[in-house]
């Protein structure tokens, strides 16, 4: 087993873990972490699959950099919305509260 295979496997498992976590938790913050974990798994796959011999490929690495920033932007926006939602409704999930 090569290191790349190992990290690809880790990516796959992180995807599964994040996916399950995203669907099973209801707390918005936990969902967000699950999303980030799944995202990390995806990024590992993106880079790992592209360099099976572990010779660096700048293109997927650049893509992952872009992806990380996009994920961060989404995370930060989600946090703002979530905190405001909590402020107005006192809830950290979307199960009930005003407007349902």
């Amino acid at each position, binding site marked *: 087993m090569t290191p790349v295979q190992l990290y690809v496997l880790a990516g796959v498992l992180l995807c599964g873990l994040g996916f399950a976590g995203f669907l099973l938790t209801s707390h918005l913050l936990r969902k967000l972490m699950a999303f980030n974990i799944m995202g990390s798994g*995806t990024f590992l*796959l993106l880079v790992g699959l*592209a360099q099976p011999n572990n010779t660096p490929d700048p293109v997927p690495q650049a893509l992952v950099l872009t992806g990380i920033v996009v994920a961060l932007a989404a995370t930060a926006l989600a946090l703002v919305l979530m905190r405001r939602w909590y402020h*107005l409704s006192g809830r950290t999930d*979307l199960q009930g*509260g005003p407007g349902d």
Partner: protein
Amino acid sequence: MLALLIPGLLFTPLALAVLCLLVNFRIGRLFSWVGIIVQVLVALGLWATVADQGGLYYDLGGWAAPLGIELRVDGLAVTFVLLTAVVASAAALHAGAYLDPRKGYQSYFWPLLWFLWAGLNGVWLAGDLFNLYVGLELISLAAVGLVALGGEAPALRAALRYLYAALLGSLGYLLAVALVYGSYGTLSLSGIAELAADHPPAPLILVLAALGLALKTALFPLHFWLPAAHGIAKSPVSALLSALVVKASFYIMARLWLEMGEQAGSIWLAQGLGALGAAGVVVGSWQAFRQSRLKMVVAYSSVAQIGYLFLLFPLSWGVATTTAELAQQGITLHLISHALAKAAMFLAAGNLILAVGNPQVSALAGVSRFLPFSLFSFGLAAVSLMGLPPSGGFVAKWLLLQASLAAGQWWWIGVLLLGSLLSALYVFRIFRASFLETGSDDPFYHPPRSLEVIPMALAVMAIGLGFVANLPLTVMALPVGGGVP
């Protein structure tokens, strides 16, 4: 000519987003009017040029495809660019009069709108898988921002649900992209299409992309986020979301399917997506019928109409080329006419709610007598939505029927026909409510003419599409002719 049109198309919305962010609502509106004129002209110019000379690839930054990012400027893409220009202009003009400029946060409407517009143009033209991802995210975040605008609790809730669904969907798509890059070493759609014959893609790629994008397109049963987001947002925003935003993810799905479906698709995936679409038609319509608030009726109707789009997959897999073409034409026309009709409907619904001062369907009694104009725009849009002639929606339905019959997949015929009836069920519920007579006093606020004219114009286009469908059908079939301008 194209050397200036394409940069113009990409640049104006982004530049306007920057400009509008720096000023207040009224000045932003002024800027946006100028921007709308530019965008519509550029989109028309681009459409006419491609209709005349065929499509082409445009290498951004001067770097040719697999290293750089190319734009695929073909007939279908420019048709959607034009559609976006029309619908977004209408929504923007409507918003200029509809939104309250005294509320400070409304000034963010313009930059968000322009980013959304830029993202949409980006997605229609994109020829690169990862670029599609970024474009998709730009659209999603801008759309979430628009839904959340104002920050009231129900809007926040809808926005959060929407955001989370969109994020998960994008990740599904990104996973597919990772697998594609791992298999081919390139992200260029045209490159992959060429390679796919010799290197069949893994079936999982399409499944993942389909799931992720179906979530973003609100395919039943992944539609849970849509009604709240589209029903709670301000009417011009709802119009944009229902008419264009959900279509962007579907468009990506369709492009992937047409490039890779033959190798990576399977009858199960094709029929399964079709079946979910069909279920969406039935369930969405029924839910729409049961809503008590006007905008929720329209929002659930989107769930139903989105369902039809997914008939593309079964009707273009494993059938004769001519049948697949019929299906593609039908779906494209359905997409366009739904965009026009649904935007008209949301804007008209916004006007009606503004006039009645009450979001309930039951509050519409007497509207037919005192606000016939707004109701009439709603009605014209509804004709197209129900797929009744003469309208774009009817022509689309006709083509889809032809495709189903030619493909021998008779089960979709039932869906198409039943869908028509079910849509009549919820549409005529609204008319029923508004035809009731209340008395001879006019209790309603009368919205300004400028607000009323816009949905009418869109609805007339949705109807008119039925008469001129041949023209867009010819243009959207134009492939890339090749070369740099």
